């Protein structure tokens, strides 16, 4: 839904680095995105293609690494993946406690770009 402003800010960062590194053409962009975000890969690429038309990033492929939502048990520190389909009745697989902290899944990160 909000892919457009997010893609615009990705493009801004890419174009800034393209100038810094005297890039003529961007081939691919590596992103890390948490699975708690509601972004859709297909729409991200479509919006990016639309926004990047006429820039050095035109035609660049988005390579998205999805980061799973992980919980850390407040009791024993065990880490395990959050099952988004059922958030109630979750207990730590290691010690059986029910208090957790969310340690990943909200990432929004540009890792790198392949460019010439």
């Amino acid at each position: 839904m909000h892919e457009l402003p997010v893609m615009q800010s990705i493009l801004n960062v890419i174009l800034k680095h393209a100038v810094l590194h005297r890039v003529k053409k961007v081939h691919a962009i590596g992103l890390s995105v948490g699975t708690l975000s509601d972004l859709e890969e297909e729409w991200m690429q479509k919006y990016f293609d639309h926004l990047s038309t006429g820039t050095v990033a035109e035609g660049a492929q988005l390579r998205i690494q999805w980061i799973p939502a992980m919980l850390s048990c407040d009791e024993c520190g065990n880490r395990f993946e959050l099952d988004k389909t059922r958030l109630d009745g979750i207990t730590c697989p290691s010690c059986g406690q029910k208090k957790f902290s969310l340690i990943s899944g909200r990432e929004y990160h540009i890792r790198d770009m392949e460019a010439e």
Partner: protein
Amino acid sequence: MAEIRLIEIKEEILTDNRKEADNLRAKLKKTGTFLLNLMSSPGAGKTTLILKTIEQLRGRLRMGVLEADIDSMVDAEKIAASGIPAVQIRTGGFCHLDASMVMKGLDAFDLKCLDLVIIENVGNLVCPAEFDTGAVRNAMILSVPEGDDKPLKYPLMFSVSHVVLVNKIDFLSLSDFDMDVFRERVHTLNPAAAIMETSGRTGQGVAAWADWLECEVKAFIA
């Protein structure tokens, strides 16, 4: 063909917005104005609850309301009728507010004369969760008819909210909304979230919510 290089970037995508939001919070600290970002889906009862909150806090805090809507003035007119300054931001099709839009909207207020500004964000449980508005606290409303499964569908919204108001609580006996299951789902995502039950129609729970808000405001502007 030219050589292809791998260039490391390592930047957060929404850095610009986060910086703007931090600047705004620093500015609000100086003027002594607490900014509350209120989010929900359309029809959950944001405007009614704001009006009830204004009634409770009138005389205790100096308030203003920043209304965001894709394209209408209806809510700002309702708030202004209660005698509280209201500013309408039309997002022009945007599904959320970001910090720079909020900053622009706040220019219309004399912030030194206000203790609390409530942002009524665009009705939507998806996009507003992604964008830091510069608010000191995020609150969301989930109304009983929407169902207790919403944390499963919109986990990000529940994970960024400091307080979750379960509104239209007067409908609870008519629905199969399971409050215990709902609380557990919210606390799995966000153990620190405060959960309060309210009804904009009957006024149930509004005093407790207003007291919570007043405490937060006083702690911030102290």
